[in-house]
């Protein structure tokens, strides 16, 4: 097996097989994060697909200045945000309108959990820019603050501050609900 770096370099040079290999190994990461962003399989697949296409387009711009996966996360976040914008045009604000759209994660023991998650994801969208990805990367993907800071290209202290803000907002907004 070749290392990722070699694969990336070959793909950048136009080697389709290398690119396919790269896609194959990173698709699951992309999909997983997309799912956490959207909360539903179909949307996540759409976002992941878009991210793959975008990757094909912009791989040439990757300069090995950062970790490839950090760069990839950023790309997926951008796709997810674009998706969100396009969704906003389609749907009204209330999270209840798409109530029949299910989160197909098996939470058999806690049937209200998908609803909670959907509400949570939905309300995160209304927070300031940068909040949703910070929260997701730290809490859902389990990165450290420093890692998230590199992925998002901000200072570590900004990450801590954002998390603090979100926590505060949730306390005031949802109180006991979440």
């Amino acid at each position, binding site marked *: 097996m070749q290392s990722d770096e070699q694969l990336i370099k070959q*793909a950048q040079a*136009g080697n*389709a*097989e290398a*690119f*396919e290999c790269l*896609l*194959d190994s990173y*698709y*699951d990461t992309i*999909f*997983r994060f997309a*799912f*956490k962003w959207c909360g539903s*399989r*179909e949307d996540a*697949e*759409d976002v*992941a*697909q*878009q991210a*793959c*296409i975008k*990757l*094909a*387009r912009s*791989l*040439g711009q990757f300069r090995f200045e950062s970790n490839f996966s950090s760069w990839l996360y950023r790309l997926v976040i951008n796709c997810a945000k*674009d*998706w969100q*914008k*396009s969704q906003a*045009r*389609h*749907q*009204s*604000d209330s999270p209840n*309108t*798409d109530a*029949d759209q299910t989160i*197909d*994660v*098996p939470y058999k023991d806690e049937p209200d*959990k998908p609803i*909670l*998650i959907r509400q*949570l994801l939905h309300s995160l969208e209304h927070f300031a820019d940068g909040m949703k990805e910070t*929260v*997701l990367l730290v*809490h*859902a993907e*389990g990165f450290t603050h420093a890692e998230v800071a590199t992925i998002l290209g901000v200072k570590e202290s900004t990450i801590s501050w954002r998390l603090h803000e*979100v*926590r505060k907002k*949730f*306390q005031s907004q*949802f*109180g*006991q609900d*979440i």
Partner: protein
Amino acid sequence: MKDDQSPDSLEKLLSDMDSPPSDKNAKKRAMNLAMAEFNQQHNVKNSVKRNIEKNNKKNTQGFSFLPRPISNFLTASRMSIMKALNNKLFYSGVATLSVAVMGTLIFQQTYQAPIDPTSMTVDESVHLEEQPLSFAEKKKELGRESKDQARLRAEVEKRIATTAPVVSEPELFEITSDTSQIQPLVQSAAPVKNKRLNTEAGAAASVEIKADSQKLLAISSSPIQAPDILPPQGYNEEGRDKFESVEANPIKLVSEEPVSTFSIDVDTASYSFVRRQLNQGVFPQKSAVRIEEMVNYFDYNYPLAETKAEPFKPSITVQPSPWNSGKKLVHIGVKGYDIPRAEQPRSNLVLLLDVSGSMNSADKLPLVKQSMSMLLDTLHPEDTIAIAVYAGAAGQVLAPTPAKDKQTILNALNRLNAGGSTAGGQGIKLAYQLAEANFNKEAVNRIILATDGDFNVGIRNSEELKGFVERKREQGVFLSVLGFGQGNYNDQLMQALAQNGNGIAAYIDSVREAQKVLIDEATSTLFPIAKDVKIQVEFNPSTVSEYRLVGYETRHLNREDFNNDKVDAGDIGAGHTVTAIYEITPKGAGVSQSIDSLRYQDGATKAVQIDAPVSSAISEYGFVKVRYKLPTSDKSTLISQAISTDQVATKELAQEAEFAGAVAGFAQLLKGGKYLNNYGYDDVISAAQANKGADIFGYRTEFIQLVRSAKTASLIK
């Protein structure tokens, strides 16, 4: 710790959130698309060296989701496609490009994304250094291309129509056989390399195209497969507001046409629509501005009529014209008798609500519900309400229920949801049936239609609808129209319905407007005091040379219609005010006429002058006649009053007239200001500011704000 309740469980919730394993097919699909994109990128790059990436990116910005291709399509042959993809890098790129072009075409029909197909043209012609093809030739070729695409699309669509959404293999191969038509497209889409197109490669390309047709099929058939998707909101409903455009009333010579006749109009829809547009920073389209409706939006403090038997009296004010020195504005103001609450008749209301898919937006159905519950509060406990709705079909939601049974009515309202097409005609029929079933001779029987005016099923012909409403009107059922929403607002039909149904047309853009129409002015909205109100003005040729009626273009009547009681005209509700403004050019005193006098016709004009009685010839500008019918009567009554030249208006009347003049000036500015000389937004603002009066409800203050927005918008424009 209390903290446990929220943040910790927030974190826990997120960290517990596990994504399901990715779907193999979805992955493959994504990878295929990405590979195709990758190949396209690298092919273009190789053939044109550099800087394409920059240009290409223009085409691919935005989030152009292709609807997800859903099918059980040939998992086995996917391998071969992949192979073909990998081996024939270039041709797959070409085919993808063709899909991109086709996709863009289809895409644009449903979605106004910032993709510019012409930028593709430019890009390619820029890249064509190796192939000396002129820009014009290139363009021609692209034109042909789109024809081919259209043919292909038609073909594919035809097939979808005849086959089930899940496409079987043989069907696909039939489509493949059509690729001969697509060949020119492939070649022209990438003329750079077409010399390499040998037969083997052609086959590969056709395999690819097969896959693409499949994609295309999936694209076009996905709406069939996913009917549960919410109807798209907003984006495809821009700029489809329908207004009738009417030429502004011209200046007329008194010597040629001394008599002007029109029907009154108490609608206010135009003002709220214009307000909404301006508040969004958009300059309203000219045809959306109806001067008389803008003027009549405001309540003017004209003297009230004392009795119900003679429900109103005209008050006439003559003032210098703000936009033409020497000319004068004649205001004819009418305020209807306001029925005291104790004397108000009962109402038999049928609410006819549009719940079609197009009403699915915050400013439509939810606002309708809110407005209707407001209306409930203004009703007498014994009034009855029935609710009918229409979408794909019409149905009764609530049988006639007394207004005191408020909860039942509210429950019925709250159950409503938007969805489906719009069988408006059918809805109107049903509403009339309901109104007639519960017809009360003592009461005001009225249908209130709330809609965005998009009637797309059933009687769609507005003439037919108008005829229907007109026949029903004679049976004593009134029809009022409340317009909602924008982007697809059919003002033309709304106006026609209300005018023919003896009702008002109002446009509700906000809760505030609902409050104004349904609560503050509830009596005028609900109780007519006079119907078929017509105004006829005869100008005195010895004092007035020209006149121009400001607004009322859609309400023009023929001179003989005035005395014909069969001719329908506008209605006045209790407490309504109506203002009509004429701009006149008085004779003499060095006032420049807009129309040159005729060289050879002088004698004829003089003859008229000689005929006129001498006493009134100098002291009057003209003579106003108003005809109206009481709501229950079929015979009209005449009120008349002269416009005297030396009339001195009371201070209050002058103030009201000047404000009305400012509004009329503003409306004309929005319409282009053909007759306004140098009159501008600032003049409107200062005149309105000076004549604001008490302005209890703040509408006049709001108007001034609106003029400021228009001024800004006009500067940007």
